[in-house]
């Protein structure tokens, strides 16, 4: 909302520099985006001139040599505009005047002719952008008059960022009232109730109440029939007719104010509708009444596919969710959005119908979005205006139509209105303000603040009974809203103490999952991995790049209806794509190795949740629409550890990364196992022979492996290894914080080694399992310390060397005691096809 300072000052001049006012407004709830100065930095040197003669320059086709009366005598000015002509009233920048942008006007010879100033265009004065020629003023202020008296030169304009609840600040008078409450400077009566409307146009007290008083001979009701078929979409429609309307350009002051407000002057009648809207916050529309057959307008839902040619020159196709204004022949406008061209006011118009209507905000909002059309009117209606504002607008418009267009108002309004919204006063209980704000403000001061903001206040003991003005009706509906109003006018910034909540003590803290998540992240950091944060959305083609089967639930669960682009249109179901993409980007930028990890969510069809919030099981009565478990994914390309002066860096292979995973699990006090499940499908993006399922206990929690060469190639990578696990499942297996102490034995262990030949495909973990099973209680540890195949070993076989540790809690074991256990182990190994070596 652009607020020309001078226009606002008609109603309240807070006596502050615009910047100081902006600061105060910001501290009371109205953001001022910026304060701009229209046109030149100073009005000095800009005067009204009268063009006495304009002749062609003897030596230049495009230039005219003009004699201009600037009050201080006649001067010669060379002008390049095609539209300059004798008789025009223009704005002259005298030598010494400074133009917007800083250029100073100087006496100069142009093609041999001395020029003493410049005739300005509105573009040069930053009053508009649409015209190429000079600015011609229609009525004639005396030559020599300072231009600032008729034009907003060097006018400060406040650009307000009005929050959607404050519909009152979409009108100059509402902003003036705000300035009044902030500064305590006096506020003039409203422009519909005795205040000024514009230079030479004033209202009288009670204008709104007198709208039905006799005026012209013709009655509006005789010329106009309004039928509202849908009161919900159009709660009020008021119309007033005018005869003998003289359509023409608006006076300069009116044009200038519209320009300063950011609107384009069109003709006096149309300009009046815009001026009234800017002043009161209530949009209007003017019809050429002679172009409305029988003066009949029907407000109804449009039919699906019904078309209307609107004033902006475009044709719009409506739906039955939208409200239209129809005449006998078809549509004459889109309710609350824009009028139709069929009854547009033109130079030949003499009879006018002025509409001030009220529309359903949510409906206008939806229509605006569906049509892709936003007008000054719709942006106000969509926030829901009060139906009574229509009368204010009609009262102000009537004064302007008479004062500017010489029109004769028809007698009376046609006013079709649904029952008005109730306007019960709101009780503001004593002590309530202090209870919410934590700052005591006495009842007198509360009443004073509310009254300055336009509320009606009655005292009832220390309670206040508050009546809300129509333009705050939908914003202030409850006691709490009054508390806010009192608070924002009470200089809270200075007065509000800074305290901390008192009352029952409470333990703050991270949940166990949150604390362990940090530990997991830190473990990967300590293993040399860089944490990354990838996009949650991805390209639907990623599923293909990862070779996911279309039937795989990870081939895309959550699809956005309105993505910013196709490559950000689905939510990721695995972190791997993000990590691979980031690896590629870094390698292409010259990194020689990358080790990355991400701890983030994936978005899966709803199904079984994992444990706790990290498993997607969030608090609240309604389950989330999808399953969002937290995953942990790590990827290494090239060596994890750099080379040093005595060790060579080796590329990361499966076991290097498995070590990282084991370090991670071990740091959480638990362990993971990795298995290839015979016959089970492997992850399609992994090397089928160098990958496996990660388990914590019996539960599969993810995968680890070398990236499939075809997938690696998609991402321009050589060999890469990665794992991805469901974090909550891993944390669930962790005993951290719940460890139970067991006594350790003082008796020494007995270590024995054995070597066994097994089939190449026999997993080492199975061999260990057999040994542990057979070893019973006395076997307290078994580990593999060598794996060998090749010379001396039969094809299809490998040799595993195991170290076994025997120990009893209560005695030193003798060979005789170990012997039966040892033979049991060997027997068990042989039963599974193992052959003892040596």
């Amino acid at each position, binding site marked *: 909302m652009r607020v020309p300072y001078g226009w606002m000052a008609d109603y309240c001049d807070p006596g502050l520099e615009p910047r100081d006012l902006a600061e105060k407004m910001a501290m009371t*709830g109205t*953001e001022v985006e910026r304060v701009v100065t229209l046109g030149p930095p100073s009005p000095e040197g800009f005067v009204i001139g009268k063009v006495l003669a304009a002749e062609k320059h003897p030596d230049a086709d495009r230039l005219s040599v003009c004699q201009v009366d600037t009050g201080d005598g006649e001067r010669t000015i060379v002008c390049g505009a095609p539209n300059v002509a004798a008789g025009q009233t223009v704005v002259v920048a005298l030598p010494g005047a400074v133009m917007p942008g800083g250029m100073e006007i100087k006496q100069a010879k142009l093609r041999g002719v001395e020029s003493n100033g410049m005739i300005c265009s509105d573009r040069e004065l930053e009053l508009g952008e649409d015209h190429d020629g000079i600015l011609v003023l229609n009525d004639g202020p005396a030559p020599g008059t300072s231009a600032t008296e008729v034009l907003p030169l060097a006018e400060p304009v406040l650009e307000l960022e009005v*929050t*959607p609840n404050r519909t009152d600040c979409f009108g100059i008078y509402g902003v003036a009232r705000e300035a009044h409450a902030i500064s305590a400077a006096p506020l003039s009566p409203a422009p519909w109730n005795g205040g000024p409307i514009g230079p030479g146009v004033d209202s009288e007290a009670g204008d709104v109440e007198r709208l039905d008083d006799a005026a012209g001979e013709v009655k509006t009701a005789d010329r106009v029939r309004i039928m509202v078929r849908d009161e919900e979409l159009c709660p009020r429609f008021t119309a007033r007719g005018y005869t003998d309307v003289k359509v023409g350009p608006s006076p300069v002051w009116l044009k200038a104010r519209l320009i300063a407000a950011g609107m384009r002057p069109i003709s006096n009648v149309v300009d009046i509708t815009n001026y009234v809207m800017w002043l009161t916050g209530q949009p209007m529309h003017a019809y050429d009444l002679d172009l409305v057959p029988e003066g009949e307008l029907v407000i109804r839902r449009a039919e699906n596919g019904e078309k209307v040619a609107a004033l902006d020159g475009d044709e719009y196709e409506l739906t039955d969710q939208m409200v239209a204004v129809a005449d006998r022949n078809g549509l004459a406008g889109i309710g609350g959005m824009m009028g139709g061209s069929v009854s547009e006011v033109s130079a030949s118009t003499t009879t006018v119908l002025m509409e001030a209507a009220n529309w359903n*905000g*949510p409906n206008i909002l939806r229509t605006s979005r569906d049509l892709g059309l936003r007008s000054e009117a719709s942006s106000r209606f969509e926030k829901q205006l009060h139906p009574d504002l229509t009368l204010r607008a009609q009262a102000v418009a009537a004064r302007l139509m008479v004062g500017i267009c010489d029109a004769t108002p028809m007698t009376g309004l046609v006013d079709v209105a649904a029952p008005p919204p109730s306007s019960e006063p709101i009780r503001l209980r004593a002590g309530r303000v202090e*209870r*919410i*704000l*934590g700052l005591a403000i006495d009842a007198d001061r509360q009443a004073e603040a509310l009254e300055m903001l336009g509320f009606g206040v009655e005292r009832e003991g220390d309670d206040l009974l508050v009546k809300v003005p129509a333009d705050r009706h939908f914003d202030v509906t*409850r006691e709490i809203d009054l*508390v*806010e109003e009192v608070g*924002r006018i009470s200089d*809270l910034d200075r007065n*509000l103490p*800074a305290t*901390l*909540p008192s*009352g*029952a003590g*409470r333990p*703050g803290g991270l*949940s166990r999952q*949150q604390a362990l998540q940090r530990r997991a*992240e*830190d473990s*990967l*950091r*300590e293993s*040399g991995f*860089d*944490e*990354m*944060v*990838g996009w*949650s*959305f991805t390209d639907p083609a990623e599923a293909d790049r990862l070779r996911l089967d279309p039937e795989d639930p990870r081939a895309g669960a*959550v*699809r956005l*209806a*309105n993505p*910013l682009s196709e490559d950000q249109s689905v939510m990721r179901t695995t972190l791997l794509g993000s990590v691979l993409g*980031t690896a590629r980007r*870094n390698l292409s*930028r010259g990194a020689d190795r990358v080790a990355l990890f991400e701890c983030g*969510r994936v*978005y899966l069809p709803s199904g079984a949740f994992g444990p706790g*919030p990290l498993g*997607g099981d*969030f*608090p*609240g009565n*309604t389950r*989330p*629409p999808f399953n969002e478990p937290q995953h942990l994914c790590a990827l290494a390309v090239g060596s*994890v*550890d750099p080379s*040093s002066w*005595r060790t060579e860096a080796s590329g990361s292979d499966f076991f290097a990364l498995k070590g990282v995973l084991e370090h991670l699990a071990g740091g959480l006090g638990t362990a993971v196992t990795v298995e290839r499940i015979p016959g089970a499908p492997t992850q399609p993006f992994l090397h089928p022979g160098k990958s496996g399922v990660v388990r914590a206990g019996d539960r599969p929690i993810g995968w680890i492996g070398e990236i499939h060469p075809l997938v690696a190639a998609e991402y321009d990578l050589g060999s890469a290894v990665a794992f991805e696990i469901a974090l909550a499942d891993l944390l669930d297996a962790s005993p951290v914080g719940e460890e139970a102490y067991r006594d350790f034995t003082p008796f020494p262990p007995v270590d024995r080694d054995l070597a066994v030949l097994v089939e190449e495909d026999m997993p080492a973990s199975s061999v260990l399992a057999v040994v542990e099973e057979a070893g019973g209680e006395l076997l307290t540890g078994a580990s593999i310390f060598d794996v060998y195949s090749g010379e001396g070993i039969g094809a299809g076989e490998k040799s595993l060397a195991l170290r076994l540790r025997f120990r009893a809690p209560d005695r030193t074991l003798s060979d005789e005691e170990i012997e039966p256990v040892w033979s049991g182990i060997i027997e068990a190994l042989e039963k599974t096809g193992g052959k003892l070596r040596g």
Partner: protein
Amino acid sequence: MVERIEEIEAEAKAAVEAADSASELEETRVRFLGRKAELTGILRGIADLPPEQRGPVGSTGNKVRKALEGLIEAKVEGLRNAELEKSLAGDRIDVSLPGSPARAIGHIHPITRTRRMIEDVMVGLGYQVMEGPEVEHDYYNFTALNHPEGHPARMLQDTFYVEDEEHVEQVLLRTHTSPMQVRAMEASPPPLFMIVPGKTYRRDSDATHSPMFHQVEGLAVGEGITLADLKGTLLAMLREIFGPDREIRMRPHFFPFTEPSVEFDVSCFRCGGSGSLDDGSRCGLCKGIGWIELGGAGMVDPNVFGFVADAGYDPDSVTGFAFGFGIERIAMLRHGVGDLRLFFDNDVRMLEQFS
């Protein structure tokens, strides 16, 4: 005789002192304490002495013998240590060479770092940390936060909707972390003190807007909680983050789910809130204003409590405040990161700058 023993002692001490090798020391030992040594002879011949001399000579002789043995023992150890030191000094390495094997140094993302810092500060103030879904029901993101159907505020936050033919515009990517206010209140009765860090989404993309970003939500509900408590809490938090001299400014604003609502600023930590630097130039961080905008806050709107009345939230008995702000914004301010998009580009040359 006793005098003689004392002379021997003095001689022997001097000889031990003078010895500077193990062999010399052994010679000395044999000379003074060996079988043929004078002292040994004296002690052996005590029985031949007159009875009144036997006592003094025996005790002095034995004392001196013991002292000399100890002296020689100590000297032996000293010489051995000196020889070890000498050989160690010759066994040298180049300590300036790097450690081996070289270990890669990993890094935690600046957003995670910043999030953890905020969490730790708020935990210290007595808050729990909670997570909520990012793909959310319209109900939690809008309706229960007092954005009625057709409310213009719904349009302010350009929303990503999830494709769902049955429920058009019912499932969305949360536009703020605020939906967890309602979920948390549904799940536990007052008093409730919690923060919610997490990802949020808006349909907006340029140098200052990212379609995905991170917020922290805060919510405190209980008896007697006021706007002044909000101010004190934010001030305490901001001083932890930006330094003990910071001040806070709250400007009235509008949010559908808080009333009264404010936006809050922190005094600029570069220029101390004056807007200009020591050399008189305009402070670029706060653009000369002295304040840096951080987020939105306010008192929980009674209508929001209305949606969780069943869970024990009665607006006549409890009040509360809520606040929200961007994690990236804090990270950018604290670390001087100029472009929001750098956080999601994950260039390791950026990541490596944060530990």
